[in-house]
């Protein structure tokens, strides 16, 4: 080996790709690809998963199993954050409002998928393997796995599109809760399969159910406990940085404990979020807002890892056919269940129509359960399940998010969950200015100025010269002051009593910048002028707030209106 080869081997060895460099590549590339997909109107999460596919097992293989195991904690962390954020959206008030619809639809769609997939896979399994107990086992296990819906990719689309309304609420509730149904079905199925396949010794029904009670019950108790602690502590904090650090610390502590005790991570984090949002509503809004701003890099990493993990190279024709049957059965079962459930519980029409499109996603829990099945039932049964679930996850993770987007768009819920901050971020000076404001000429006398003030409720008017160029602002206080000199008011002109226009902005100035000028300079109005100084309009702080509030109310009432359809 020459010196150069030695040097290169030492310094450019891909196996020495350190974790930070990989993180950088994933976040940098992920954000870029996500943005590209957004431009193509495809949910960004598809881009992240696609990048993962390209870099991981299925594609180039840059992210190998060792790297993935190194980065596993980040994925778990992401699941914890997702659980926490979903929990934060589940307000008791909303649950009460949708309670009946929610439970009915949840049970119908998860059981629908379970029943249909179980039957279809059992029949197909018998056709391929000519063994009833094998076929029934395969059917039951796949059926129970099919009932789970992954929250991550689905909620990411909801958050990206700022949705609000009945469909959003039902989706959030269902994707968060049907994992519990899936775990229950899987626990029962495993026991039945254990008996059918003759290795029932270590998977008795009772111990499976006890496991389940521990996994779910403990998660809820731990989450609520940690939520209580977090609530007590942030109550005395006012510093945002500290609240953020402490909240993230609490989430990490909780999911760390959950892993240690072998309980469900998402449920635990969700229960914490649920506790905070319902028992400390005043402080929680801020906390969730802070945590939300922290999530993007973790989520990008998580979804890239989801893509990287999928390996579809070992597929056989039998597994492909089974995967297609599983996929169709799952979609069919969930759709029938969702539609029947919505109809029976008299859910809004948008839920009935579009919920089926929103329940495709399958990821963590399904893959996790398939791996459990693979470890408990060694041999063809376990292997087939792992292959089929992996292959179908591949398909639904890419097809699911665009369908969710389609559903929420058609349901009219996109953009209804916009905050004041979002609204300002999206606007420019031209959007918030009074464009039809009359200008006051410099030589206008008090009488004609009074007339303008009397006809409109603006408190500030732009003053212009002969050419229409802005020279000042006339606030109502200055007009009021002329009462001091009422006997000379006929000699006074706008020029005499106006204020200098210290700040002005252009129509395309960003609204956030305008707001900052208002806040930092303590101004009440800012004129908007074009590049020649000609007045385009006027922004009054008071009227800007009114406009924003009106727009927010409008969006809120649109969301409320959706419930009545």
């Amino acid at each position, binding site marked *: 080996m020459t010196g150069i080869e030695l040097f290169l081997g030492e310094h450019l060895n891909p196996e020495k790709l350190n974790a930070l460099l990989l993180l950088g590549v994933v976040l940098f590339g992920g954000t870029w690809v996500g943005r590209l997909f957004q431009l193509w109107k495809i949910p960004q999460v598809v881009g992240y998963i696609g990048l993962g596919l390209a870099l991981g097992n299925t594609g180039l293989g840059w992210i190998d199993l060792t790297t993935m195991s190194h980065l596993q904690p980040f994925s778990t962390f992401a699941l914890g954050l997702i659980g926490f954020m979903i929990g934060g959206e589940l307000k008791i008030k909303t649950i009460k409002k949708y309670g009946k619809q929610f439970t009915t639809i949840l049970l119908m769609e998860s059981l629908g998928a379970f029943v249909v997939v179980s039957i279809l896979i059992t029949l197909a399994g018998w056709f391929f393997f000519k063994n009833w107990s094998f076929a029934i086992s395969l059917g039951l296990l796949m059926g129970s796995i099919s009932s789970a819906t992954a929250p991550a990719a689905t909620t990411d689309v909801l958050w990206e599109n700022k949705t609000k309304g009945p469909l959003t609420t039902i989706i959030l509730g269902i994707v968060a809760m049907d994992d519990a149904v899936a775990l229950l079905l899987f626990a029962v199925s495993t026991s039945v399969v254990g008996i059918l396949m003759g290795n029932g010794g270590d998977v008795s029904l009772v111990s499976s159910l006890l496991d389940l009670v521990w996994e779910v019950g403990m998660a809820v108790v731990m989450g609520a406990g940690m939520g209580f602690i977090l609530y007590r502590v942030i109550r005395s904090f006012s510093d945002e940085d500290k609240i953020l650090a402490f909240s993230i610390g609490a989430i990490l502590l909780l999911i760390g404990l959950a892993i240690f005790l072998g309980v469900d991570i998402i449920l635990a984090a969700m229960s914490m979020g649920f506790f905070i949002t319902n028992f400390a509503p005043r402080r929680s809004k801020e906390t969730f807002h802070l945590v939300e701003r922290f999530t993007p890099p973790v989520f990008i990493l998580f979804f890239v890892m989801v893509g990287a993990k999928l390996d579809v190279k070992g597929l056989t024709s039998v597994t492909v056919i089974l995967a297609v049957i599983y996929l169709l059965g799952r979609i069919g079962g969930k759709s029938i269940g969702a539609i029947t459930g919505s109809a029976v519980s008299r859910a809004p029409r948008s839920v009935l129509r579009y919920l089926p499109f929103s329940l495709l996603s399958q990821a963590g829990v399904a893959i996790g359960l398939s791996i459990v099945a693979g470890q408990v039932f060694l041999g063809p049964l376990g292997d087939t399940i792992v292959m089929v679930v992996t292959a179908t996850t591949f398909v639904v993770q890419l097809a699911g998010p665009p369908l969710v987007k389609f559903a929420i768009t058609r349901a009219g819920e996109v953009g209804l969950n916009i905050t004041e901050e979002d609204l300002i971020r999206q606007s420019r000076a031209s959007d918030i200015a009074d464009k039809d404001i009359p200008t006051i000429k410099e030589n206008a006398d008090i009488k004609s100025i009074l007339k303008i003030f009397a006809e409109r409720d603006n408190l500030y008017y732009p003053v212009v010269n002969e050419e229409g160029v802005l020279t000042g602002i006339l606030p109502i206080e200055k007009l009021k002051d002329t009462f001091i000199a009422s006997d*000379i008011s006929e000699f006074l002109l706008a020029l005499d009593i106006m204020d200098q226009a210290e700040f002005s902005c252009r129509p395309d100035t960003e609204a956030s910048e305008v707001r900052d000028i208002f806040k930092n300079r303590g101004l009440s109005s800012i004129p908007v002028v074009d590049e020649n100084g000609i007045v385009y309009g006027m922004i009054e702080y008071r009227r800007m707030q009114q406009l924003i509030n009106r727009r927010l109310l409008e969006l809120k009432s649109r969301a409320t209106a959706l419930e009545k359809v």
Partner: protein
Amino acid sequence: MELNKIIRPNNCRLLKSNTKTEALLELIDLLEQEGKVTDIEELKREIFYREQIMSTGIGQGIGIPHVRFAGISEPVILVGIKPAGFDGYESLDGEPVKMIFMILVGGEQHKEYLRILSLLVHRLKDETFRTSLTSAESSEAVYAVLTGESH
């Protein structure tokens, strides 16, 4: 507010100028000598801009050029008298302007500005007061009439 405290003897003059422009410049020169104004050229521009938009001749021989000007910290009243009147000083009643009261205040002194204007105009409504001003024979006499020390 006491007008007498604002009016200073040095700022009251019988003017030599014959025209409005000269008269205004002569009054501004008084300020320049005191050195209290930072940007005298800018002040001139503002005074003339105001006159260009509309003359400050308010009738009865009175002219009150006035501006709020950032380069001034205390209100100033400059008084210029010319019994023969100034050429080119348009006024509401068409009568020649014989008395100029130039009022200058700081940029933020809006209320003071209006008070001074109001008080001054109120005092000038008295015809005998106006007559004694225009018949004053020296700058000192102008000051004395204005501040009531001649009575």
